């Protein structure tokens, strides 16, 4: 084969690749490769950063001027509007699923738990970042009080908001659930959590991108598998648009 032919073949393959790539991501093979790559990234991060290493925390003067709201900016229900007006006096957070002692906590109950404050950076999958101070109890505290059962492998976050007609939800594994910076935030920059940022309660899962940080939190559910929830991919954006369940990249 002459060099010219080789070049032609290479150019042809490149063009074919570029053209076919447009829809190639939908094939089973591509999805298998992508999920394998995602698993490798997660395994590498877990190996390097371990269970406990913290995301960076910042000084108060390093905060951004605002914490941008994105995705759902409110909950479209009469109950939510009424609760927003009265300081979420009747809001309850359920801790359910594979736990020995299910809990139902009011906002005051949550404020009475040991608290963690952290000034951390929020990285959106779109590319922007904001820095703010969050305060709330560690998720691990709630799971311990509810006595997580050994069959539990994932923690699912149920939310009051809907997007495109579907309820928002998210999920993480137990390493992230017991990470010290995984908190249920009820305060942002020293004030009650604003409406656009998920009032009255939202998750902070600092080693993940923003779409994992479920807002307008109503329940925390311990499960063995994610298969039966939503479309089975572990979260709202994962189900709807194929976002990566591991959002540490």
């Amino acid at each position, binding site marked *: 084969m002459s060099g010219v032919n080789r*070049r032609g073949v290479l150019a042809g393959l490149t063009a074919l690749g*570029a053209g076919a*790539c447009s829809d190639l991501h939908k094939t089973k093979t591509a999805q298998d490769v992508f999920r394998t790559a995602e698993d490798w990234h997660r395994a590498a991060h877990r190996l390097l950063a371990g269970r406990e290493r913290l995301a960076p925390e910042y000084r108060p003067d390093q905060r951004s001027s605002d914490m*941008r709201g994105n995705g759902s900016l409110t909950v479209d229900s009469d109950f939510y509007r009424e609760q927003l007006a009265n300081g979420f006096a009747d809001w309850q957070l359920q801790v359910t699923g594979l736990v020995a002692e299910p809990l139902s906590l009011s906002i005051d109950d949550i404020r009475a738990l040991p608290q963690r404050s952290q000034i951390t950076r929020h990285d959106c999958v779109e590319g922007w970042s904001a820095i703010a101070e969050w305060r709330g109890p560690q998720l691990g505290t709630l799971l311990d009080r509810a006595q997580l059962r050994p069959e539990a492998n994932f923690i699912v976050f149920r939310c009051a908001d809907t997007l495109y007609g579907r309820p928002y939800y998210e999920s993480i594994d137990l390493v992230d659930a017991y990470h010290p910076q995984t908190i249920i935030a009820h305060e942002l920059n020293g004030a009650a959590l604003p409406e656009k940022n998920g009032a009255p309660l939202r998750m902070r899962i600092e080693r993940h991108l923003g779409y994992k940080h479920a807002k307008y939190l109503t329940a925390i559910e311990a499960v063995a598998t994610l298969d039966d929830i939503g479309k089975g991919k572990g979260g709202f954006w994962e189900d709807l648009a194929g976002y990566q369940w591991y959002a540490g990249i």
Partner: protein
Amino acid sequence: MKRHALSTRLWHWVNAGALVVLFMSGLTISNAHRRLYWGNYGFDPADAWLHVMRFPGWITLPARYNLAAARDWHNTAALVFAFGLLAIWLAMVANGHFRRDLATSARDWTFGAWRAALAQKGTAGMPYNPLQKLAYGALFALVLPLMVATGLAMSPGFEPFAPWLVDVLGGRQSARSIHFITTWALVGFVVGHVALTLVSGPVRLIGAMVHGGRREETGA
């Protein structure tokens, strides 16, 4: 002796494929938020140092905007690119390609050497001329590693392992900006690389990068 070792040839084409995927999917990711900032945070248009154009579908991957698919392409190709870079570094140090053909000495850093390289007629033999050494050296030692470093610095799962990396780069949004700028430096290299190949005997040079070619010593 062949002009290009098997490791060089394999890496060259695998890396070229990875770069095409990374570039095109990266443009989709850029389209998701078309502003660049310095420092650790940034979301406000007023804080942006650059408002980036929307890249059209014919040059993005996938062609129709899909951030999740673009991130799948990007993060998969990134593994090929990063571990490929590590592999070619190990290979070219081990097989002597780096020391023999790429490493510069003091005389490669003079204007006279650069003028002589520019005046050179026809295609260069081995080892490379001083300008080639500097170009490939900058590519392997600076540009390609910087793409990996700035990419890693944007990952919130990697950052707890090496927070200093984000600090050194000036913050997460700075890392994102440098990733974008370095992309275009790399595009500039590829354009120059392909152009020089086309004007200096494309059949022989591209053939050599496929089957290895024959090493011609310049005796420099």
